[in-house]
């Protein structure tokens, strides 16, 4: 029973300020704990994001099952080259981001800055292509609720002469496809915009030498976020662009 009596003992000698790097926040015991906590928190946040997009994927699954011809027809109006280009841009940007994290790990400030700039450029490139596509869809009256017209779907698509034109009731259902398309790509683009903005802030801090002193958690966790946004696109691309392409 006496063994129980020592409860609130000293874990370590009272710590002196100079023992700790400046970036260690006061409530963490050591750098490792801080880094683990930050990474763990980021993973949890990504789990939240998965559930956020999960609701959309669930809706997509149900409606695609119901209105498959409409989804095919809708998908055939997208520019597959734009989707492919964007997929490539994002995969490369994930690579550059990974290289940036690596540069931070080995404390090379120059490469870190260069990889970050490259990632920002690729991210912006993605957004430009996306903006072009959206503009194109606006011009073609494909935006549900605002200027949607089923005109194009009740006639044969010249790019896909094999597709039969849809009956009007099914053509109406392409609205559902486009709603999901805009919400999904819109939410994804929103995440991209947030990502690029955050990266710009990190870049400014990195110029001051913030992440090449061993404190790489922000860059590392941002990298996780960036890869996650990339992975979401990896799912969106086939689901939205590649329906029935195998046929």
């Amino acid at each position, binding site marked *: 029973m006496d063994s129980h009596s020592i409860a609130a003992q000293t874990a370590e000698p009272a710590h002196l300020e100079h023992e700790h790097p400046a970036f260690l926040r006061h409530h963490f015991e050591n750098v490792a704990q801080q880094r683990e906590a930050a990474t763990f928190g980021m993973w949890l946040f990504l789990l939240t994001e998965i559930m956020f997009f999960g609701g959309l994927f669930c809706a997509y699954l149900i409606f695609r099952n*119901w*209105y498959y*011809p409409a989804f095919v027809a809708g998908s055939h109006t997208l520019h597959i080259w734009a989707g492919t280009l964007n997929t490539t841009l994002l995969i490369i940007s994930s690579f550059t981001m990974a290289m940036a994290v690596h540069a931070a790990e080995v404390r090379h400030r120059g490469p870190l800055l260069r990889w970050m700039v490259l990632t920002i450029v690729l991210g912006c490139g993605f957004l430009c292509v996306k903006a072009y596509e959206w503009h194109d869809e606006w011009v073609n009256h494909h935006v549900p609720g605002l200027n949607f017209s089923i005109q194009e779907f009740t006639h044969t698509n010249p790019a896909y002469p094999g597709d039969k034109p*849809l*009956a*009007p*009731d*099914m053509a*109406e259902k392409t609205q559902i496809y486009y709603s999901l398309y805009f919400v999904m790509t819109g939410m994804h683009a929103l995440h991209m915009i947030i990502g690029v903005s955050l990266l710009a802030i990190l870049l400014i801090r990195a110029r001051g030498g913030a992440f090449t002193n061993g404190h790489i958690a922000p860059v590392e966790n941002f990298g996780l976020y960036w890869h996650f946004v990339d992975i979401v696109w990896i799912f969106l691309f086939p689901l939205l662009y590649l329906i029935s392409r195998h046929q």
Partner: protein
Amino acid sequence: MQHFISPVLWQFLVKWLTHFAIFPPEASSIAPYADALYFFLIFISVIGLGAVAILVTWFSIRYRQSRNPVATQIEGSTILEATWTIIPLILFMITFVWGALLYFRIYSPPPNAMNIYVVGKQWMWKIEHPGGQHEINALHIPINQPIQLTLISQDVFHSFSVPAFRVKREAIPGRYTTVWFEATRPGVYHLFCTQYCGTLHSQMIGWVYAMKPDDYQAWAAGSTSGHSLAQNGERLFASLGCNSCHNSTPNAHGPNLASVYGSHVQLANGQYTTVDDAFLRDTILNPTLHEVAGYAPIMPTYQGQVSEDGLIDLVEYIKRLNSNYRIDQTIDNSAGQPVQTGATPAGTSAPPLAPGAVKP
């Protein structure tokens, strides 16, 4: 007595004594089953609550600090914990099975049920009897006759509830739902909308009049609009031009609709489906989703052109094509007799095609 207390209070107390409902009337064949489960649930609740209350009270008295100044530390007891895991589990499983049986009883109509259509809209119930009686916020039914309601909403979610019958079903925009009951006692019972549906939700109420069969027949004969739903449907069928394709001639573009109701048809995607009310309604609105094998998908959609009432008329018309609806129209329905399917007198409809049959 009035002299001793204020007249207002007296009035109030008298009103209380005469208007104090405590248990709903048991007026349907399902109600006794529902009440039996209810009392069983109350019984196990009292047991459970009693067990907790007795334990807490007894321990509080026996082990209060003044009587038991020293607590004895106990880790736990696997056997005890298993006991109060397994016993509730068994009780809950009994409840589950019992509840499931009741659920299937309430939502599986008997084959001889008389069908009545109900359309919910903000904020009224429109009841449509096949015989052409139209009611708002009132439902007249004969007792001792299974009644099936086919519900739909033309705007938001509503819920059709008759507490005295212990039944309730959501009226959903865009799809049919059904519920059935058999009233056992003549009387007038509340009819509520229980799903919040907007500003005047609380005024979407009415009465169910359960009547003896003779009274019901008298009511039905006196309240008919003169046109059965099927007759309305026939007119609509003609005015929408449906018979330009569905005309049962050898060269018709569309399937012959006689005796199609209740049959199994093969769809263009190879699956089979039973033709029921929901299928008929959906094919009128979304023909492409229900392409029948062997026909070109040329049927236009009637989305937005036919009201829910019109759709009910059409569905009822197509249903009645199975028999000679002209003969058994209002008279039979007002008598509360369900129309037997199968009879196909010559003259009104061509011989039925085999299910899924390809047009000659």
